[in-house]
């Protein structure tokens, strides 16, 4: 399909180590309505050649922004054939289309370095162009050495270390031929294989959790460290049968008799991976008692209107974060603060055998009622596994509340990619003494924030908590 053609020839002469590569796309005559022409400066290739004469290399062009290698569909010209500027020389197949590559120079196609059907990375020489007929031979010998060396590289793998035991002379056959009851081969679904290639994951190293132990797309996503994409629209597969323990050599003590091993679901794998990753962040914790009498009173008032405690807490946290942007920031690279443009409060929710954090976006801006409504919708979606990725991975701050279980305080792990997480305990009647020494009983709730100390320091967190406590203790602003 000659949708467009590109010229991609560069000079690589002695005097000019930096070659100018120009791209020109023109449209073949059949495509009459779309006409565009562009000249894009491409990255410069530095290739020094020890050839005195003007022999040019024909490079594998980058025909699309995502192309990393190209396949030679066919050489339109044969070796020794004369080329005129603008003529198509070779058809290259990219990840998107087949394109004719044309020459920018007159000359002779001296040698084809990469043959039809072969693949070469973008920028590699695929052929040589000689300016005069006399130089063809020279170019050919050059090409021969080029291809023979590359062939040699390709054919002879790094020699195995010399061992004393005589190795069998024949090459080992691929172990897949036999349909034996031996070790099971890797079974991966088509999409899993595609994802593995895309994310450069070695499929053999992925543990399969799908039906019959096969590797599914979410296994690969987990292995690649990305959040599993939205749940498949197909009905969820039946729970995988308990896999009998494999005889892996680990130092763990053997299982007790009748114990079973249940592999992680995709969600559990994602949690596990995130938790391990969190260990690389230096965190610290600051706790703060908050008087909730006023909040409880407000809650009683707005509860009939559908407002939930989660929405109240998220709103309060959002408002406090608006005043302390550093707590809403994150540290992505260990070198800088990433201040987030919006305040998105992720709220941890336990969901049959898993944990997910639906996100209340713009919690500081939305009013309490909208926030409550949004929350209900998110919880519904989470239960039916219909959350879209942006609805669970766009959080900038996390709220975790175990108060409903009677927990008075706990310590949350900071999820990777966020600056802070707030752990909320139960609000309990507590005897407190005021500054005049009078005792009274007030409902007090302990909140404990875990933060990334690379960006959030003790005083930042303390100030944030103070603001948060003030908002909770004077909650009228929440309803504004």
């Amino acid at each position, binding site marked *: *399909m*000659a*949708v467009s053609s590109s010229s991609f020839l560069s000079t690589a002469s002695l005097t000019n180590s930096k070659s100018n590569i120009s791209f020109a796309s023109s449209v*073949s*005559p*059949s*495509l*009459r*309505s*779309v006409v565009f022409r562009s000249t894009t400066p491409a990255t410069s290739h530095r290739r020094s050649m020890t050839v005195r004469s003007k022999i040019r290399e024909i490079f594998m062009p980058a025909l699309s922004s995502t192309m990393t290698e190209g396949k030679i569909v066919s050489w339109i010209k044969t070796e020794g054939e004369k080329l005129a500027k603008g003529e198509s020389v070779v058809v290259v197949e990219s990840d*998107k*289309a*087949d394109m004719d590559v044309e020459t920018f120079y007159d000359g002779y196609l001296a040698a084809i370095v990469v043959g039809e059907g072969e693949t070469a990375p973008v920028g590699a020489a695929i052929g040589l162009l000689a300016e005069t007929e006399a130089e063809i031979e020279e170019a050919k010998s050059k090409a021969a050495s080029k291809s023979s060396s590359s062939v040699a590289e390709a054919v002879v793998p790094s020699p195995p270390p010399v061992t004393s035991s005589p190795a069998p002379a024949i090459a080992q056959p691929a172990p*897949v*031929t036999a*349909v034996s009851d031996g070790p099971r*081969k890797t*079974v991966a*679904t*088509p*999409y899993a*294989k*595609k994802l593995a290639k895309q994310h450069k994951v070695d499929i053999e190293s992925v543990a399969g959790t*799908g*039906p*019959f132990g*096969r590797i599914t*797309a979410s296994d690969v996503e987990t292995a690649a460290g990305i959040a599993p994409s*939205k749940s*498949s*629209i*197909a009905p969820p*597969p039946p729970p995988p049968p308990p896999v009998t323990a494999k005889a892996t050599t680990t130092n763990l003590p053997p299982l007790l008799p009748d114990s079973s091993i249940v592999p992680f679901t995709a969600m559990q794998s994602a949690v596990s991976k995130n938790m391990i990753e969190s260990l690389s962040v230096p965190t610290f914790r600051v706790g703060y008692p908050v008087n909730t009498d006023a909040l409880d009173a407000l809650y009683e008032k707005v509860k009939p209107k559908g407002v939930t405690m989660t929405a109240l807490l998220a709103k309060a946290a959002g408002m406090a974060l608006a005043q302390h942007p550093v707590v809403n920031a994150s540290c992505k690279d260990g070198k800088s603060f990433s201040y987030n443009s919006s305040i998105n409060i992720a709220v941890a929710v336990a969901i049959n055998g898993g944990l997910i954090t639906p996100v209340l976006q713009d919690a500081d801006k939305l009013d309490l009622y909208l926030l409550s409504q949004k929350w209900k919708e998110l919880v519904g*979606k989470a239960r039916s596994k*219909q959350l*879209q990725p942006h609805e669970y991975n766009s959080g900038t701050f996390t709220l975790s509340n175990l108060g409903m279980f009677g927990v008075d305080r706990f310590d949350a792990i900071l999820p990777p990619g966020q600056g802070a997480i707030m752990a909320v305990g139960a609000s309990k009647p507590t005897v407190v003494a005021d500054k005049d020494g009078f005792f009274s009983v007030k409902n007090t709730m302990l909140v404990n924030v875990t933060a990334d100390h690379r960006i959030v320091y003790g005083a930042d967190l303390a100030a944030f908590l103070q603001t948060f406590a003030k908002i909770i203790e004077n909650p009228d602003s929440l309803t504004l």
Partner: protein
Amino acid sequence: MQSALSISFSQTSLPLANRPLCSSNAAPSTTPRNLRFCGLRREAFGFSPSKQLTSCRFQIQSRRIEVSAAASSSAGNGAPSKSFDYDLIIIGAGVGGHGAALHAVEKGLKTAIIEGDVVGGTCVNRGCVPSKALLAVSGRMRELQNEHHMKAFGLQVSAAGYDRQGVADHASNLATKIRNNLTNSMKALGVDILTGFGAVLGPQKVKYGDNIITGKDIIIATGSVPFVPKGIEVDGKTVITSDHALKLESVPDWIAIVGSGYIGLEFSDVYTALGSEVTFIEALDQLMPGFDPEISKLAQRVLINPRKIDYHTGVFASKITPAKDGKPVMIELIDAKTKEPKDTLEVDAALIATGRAPFTNGLGLENINVVTQRGFIPVDERMRVIDGNGKLVPHLYCIGDANGKMMLAHAASAQGISVVEQVTGRDHVLNHHSIPAACFTHPEISMVGLTEPQAKEKAEKEGFKVSIAKTSFKANTKALAENEGEGLAKMIYRPDNGEILGVHIFGLHAADLIHEASNAIALGTRIQDIKLAVHAHPTLSEVVDELFKAAKVDSPASVTAQSVKVAV
């Protein structure tokens, strides 16, 4: 069953009905050719004659149906020749038999059609029709799930889902509706629908059930059934054919499709849109054999590579075992050439789409000394059946999948009409090169005539030059408005005389676009003439227009085309 009445209908009443309705430049023609276009209408009676129609042509058409219906209801469907029960007996009421029956009644033949199963045959009940219902769903699912595509329109859609039973019901409802339309159209015309398996007893003699009837001419139109290679155990649940798949009783997580032709491709479109992952198993070295290589290459980029599909080419599925005893479906692959074992696949289901086998067993062919070839009934170019000695069997024809010439529903119908033309005294040879074919994936693939390699081979043999014209859907305004610029159309033609040799389209609504080209091939219209015709702007039809205009033909436009231009 008065013969006088039916004769007057077919010979005189039609031109009379024509005359007052149309202006002078569409003068009534008494040539039978004028009658033909009615026969191809599958649902003649879905079209109400009482509707207000402004177009002159439509009035004639609907009036004609009215006339023929009136004639048939009063006179039956013609009167048989004295010594036979029927003028024409058709064995098999699929699309081919139906097309032949309608045309036969129109030509005044007393017609019977024998059906042992359900009216409509494969196409209506287990083929083209229900699959189009599933593909209509898959097209929408695909669109709704494509966030990027929706965003480009400025649309926001939250998670699209589907109800499997609802989808399955849509397919079965459609099949029922079309089947009823087909049955009613034949009943209304007075075609005798006889129930039972038909068999040929001897020349001009047919048996169905316990009854024996005679007919002046007989058409075999028994169609085909899914072909299942040996070694494959079909259980109808996890190892299935298209017959089962169209019922959509389950949507497996991972399904292997054996064969990457039309059927396999269409099902891969359905299954991936509904959330399955697909593995193709193709015996040839390339996916989508049979398509023009350039089209199949592009189609692979659009329909295979970005989807949750992988494939094994150059391999046979030598053994497929259904899922049982807690084991998945097991597929053993062997190299197509060396027959060496290559691989074993474990999947949730396997769809066998390796083509179709003629359904010609029990037809009594031995009674007339006809020997089938791999099950197909040998015929000549006029669909006349050839016996074991290479001689024509008089008064016996075979159309559709059973003769294997071109296994497409509309080809069967066209062959049936061609046979009726012949038995009513007009010699007719169907030009199979003018029959279009389509694959209803998203986007669609369509083609007519020769592929590029076929055309080049022919050109070499016969010593003419071949040129190619190409255009992209990216250059079409309507396609871009739909955000569906992915697509290619190519035309293979003779630059010396402007003959169209083949047209191949891959893109939005390709199946609907091919007919301008197929009609041009059927009527012998040359590029230099058709390129002067006007297309509404902006429409997808301009893609084809672009092909005609891009072609470089040495001959000038013919005189008639120019005069038409003047007249307009």
